[in-house]
């Protein structure tokens, strides 16, 4: 039987000629990732194993990005533990404040992950790198610890769902709207344990930033991973960012999919996920007046340069509504610098936005923009669970940077078109 892209990478990394769904394998990892929440737990577990070295100093990345710059003493202790571990183990990919960015924007930007890689990360959004044609999945801290010792991870070979994207999205529709549309369609467990494999002629209209956003939220449909077929756009990105060896895997003609779903990109409208699940989606034209208190534009989902440019296009020459705090967080130092050189910060600051150094902060209710009781946020992040960004009675509406920026101007959930007359 033929194999999917995911199955081919898993076969290669586990030393099998062929793998089939349901097989339990032990696979070699090309990169192991952890952050300031998950790595400290992993380090504790690592130390229990009684070994004095990691399997490969170059294949571990430690990114303190969640509660950083350290929001309090406890967080500072956690990062200190990571820093000391990195030094002791001579791990080269530890990213201190000043070089640090949000992990899933940073690793592709630095070329540390590439096509054909098998990546695990103790962070659920590790699935982001599937945009590059990698197999990439979130795991827990103990998995991270075990992989730091052995260089391997146990995995169950997933079944696959094929998403064929066709046509061209309309002007204000981006990767975020596409993935929210898909999650609305299949539900938060619609791809449980499965791989989501993206292909089709619509790919040519999706930038790498769009694809990172889509792969990033595969976990919000319960998927093990999301993976894109590699094309010219991917190759250009890889050649511009990475010197690592890469490998392109195409699906076999007779690869088996448990479901095949066609997505007509031209029919997708700007989409918003209502509290408290990413599957509670509505298109922008179905939404009545919902006043908001805060807008966040950033995160591993939507903090890339393409996202910043869209937000700036909408905010240019306009003012943030008096009732709204608008917080903009470029995901990495490089993106920050690009924003600065392109004059995007002038636009943001003149509009009345606050611009932050890279951090995951508000997305998980950590810091840098926590919601009070009864407050509502439109956020370009990935989760709108109960209490996710603050008080248990606050609300999060997930949207694209375009919708978020438009909403910041009007003070209610709004379509980009409504402010771009």
């Amino acid at each position, binding site marked *: 039987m033929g194999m999917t892209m995911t199955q081919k990478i898993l076969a290669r990394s586990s030393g099998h000629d062929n793998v089939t769904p349901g097989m339990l394998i032990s696979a070699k990892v090309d990169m192991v990732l952890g952050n300031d929440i*998950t790595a400290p737990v992993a380090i504790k577990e690592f130390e229990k*194993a009684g070994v004095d070295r990691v399997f490969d100093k170059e294949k571990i990345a430690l990114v303190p990005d969640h509660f950083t710059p350290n929001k309090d003493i406890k967080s500072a202790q956690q990062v200190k533990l990571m820093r000391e571990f990195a030094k002791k183990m001579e791990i080269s990919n530890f990213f201190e404040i000043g070089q640090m960015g949000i992990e899933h924007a940073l690793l592709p930007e630095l070329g540390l992950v590439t096509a054909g890689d098998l990546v695990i990360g103790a962070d659920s959004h*590790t699935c982001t790198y599937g945009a590059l044609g990698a197999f990439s999945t979130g*795991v827990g801290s*103990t*998995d991270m610890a075990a992989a730091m010792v*052995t260089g391997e991870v146990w995995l169950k070979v997933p079944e696959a769902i094929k998403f064929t994207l066709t046509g061209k999205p309309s002007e204000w529709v981006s990767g975020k709207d596409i993935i929210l549309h898909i999650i609305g369609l299949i539900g*938060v*467990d619609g791809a449980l344990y499965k791989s989501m494999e993206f292909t089709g002629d619509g790919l040519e209209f999706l930038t790498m930033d769009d694809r990172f956003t889509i792969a990033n939220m595969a976990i919000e449909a319960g998927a093990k991973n999301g993976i894109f077929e590699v094309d010219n756009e991917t190759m250009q990105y890889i050649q511009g960012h990475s010197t690592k060896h890469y490998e392109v895997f195409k699906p076999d003609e007779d690869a088996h999919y448990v479901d095949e779903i066609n997505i007509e990109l031209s029919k997708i409208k700007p989409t918003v996920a209502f509290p408290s699940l990413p599957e509670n989606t509505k298109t922008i034209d179905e939404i009545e007046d919902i006043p908001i208190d805060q807008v966040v534009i950033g995160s591993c989902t939507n903090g890339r340069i393409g996202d910043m440019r869209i937000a700036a296009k909408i905010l240019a020459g306009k003012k943030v509504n008096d009732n709204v705090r608008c917080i903009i967080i470029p995901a990495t130092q490089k993106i920050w610098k690009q924003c600065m050189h392109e004059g995007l910060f002038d636009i943001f600051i003149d509009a009345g936005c606050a611009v932050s150094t890279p951090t995951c902060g508000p997305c998980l209710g950590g810091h840098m923009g926590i919601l009070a009781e009864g407050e509502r946020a439109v956020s370009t992040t990935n*989760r709108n669970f109960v209490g996710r960004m603050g008080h248990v009675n606050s609300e999060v509406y997930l949207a694209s940077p375009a919708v978020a920026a438009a909403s910041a101007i009007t003070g209610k959930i709004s379509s980009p078109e409504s402010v771009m007359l």
Partner: protein
Amino acid sequence: MNYIGKVLKYGDNIDTDVIIPARYLNISDYKELAKHCMEDIDPSFVSRVKKGDIIVGGQNFGCGSSREHAPITIKESGISCVVAKSFARIFYRNSINIGLPIIECPECVEDANEGDKLEIDLENGTIFNYSNEKTYKIMPFPKFIQNIINSGGLMEHIKTQ
């Protein structure tokens, strides 16, 4: 080994943010973390839970963030087992890796009510509900996973390799 306890029942899509909110993730003491278990969905959980109790959840239990603090907090709070219709995959592997028994059994979940007494027999693959006196069959774990559980978690398991 059998697990006997009373049911604390929850619905579908219980995410790891409500199991242990991120605002507590800078805490490294697991006993301290356990004081906040389920806080955002059931503030009375901590005062009600007794050692050995069993959480019963619906579909996609443990979805969202990969934080291993979620199964750790559940285990530390005294819960002996989690039974659900289905589990989110990272929560599933985290539970196996830290030695928290988790069981998929949609029929048992459907019938169980808050406060019911359950007895789970992993060896023979059954759950008995004392309230309705029904016995439910459960699928055994694959051997690969059973070996991890028998070793007492993933780190102990790799030491034996």
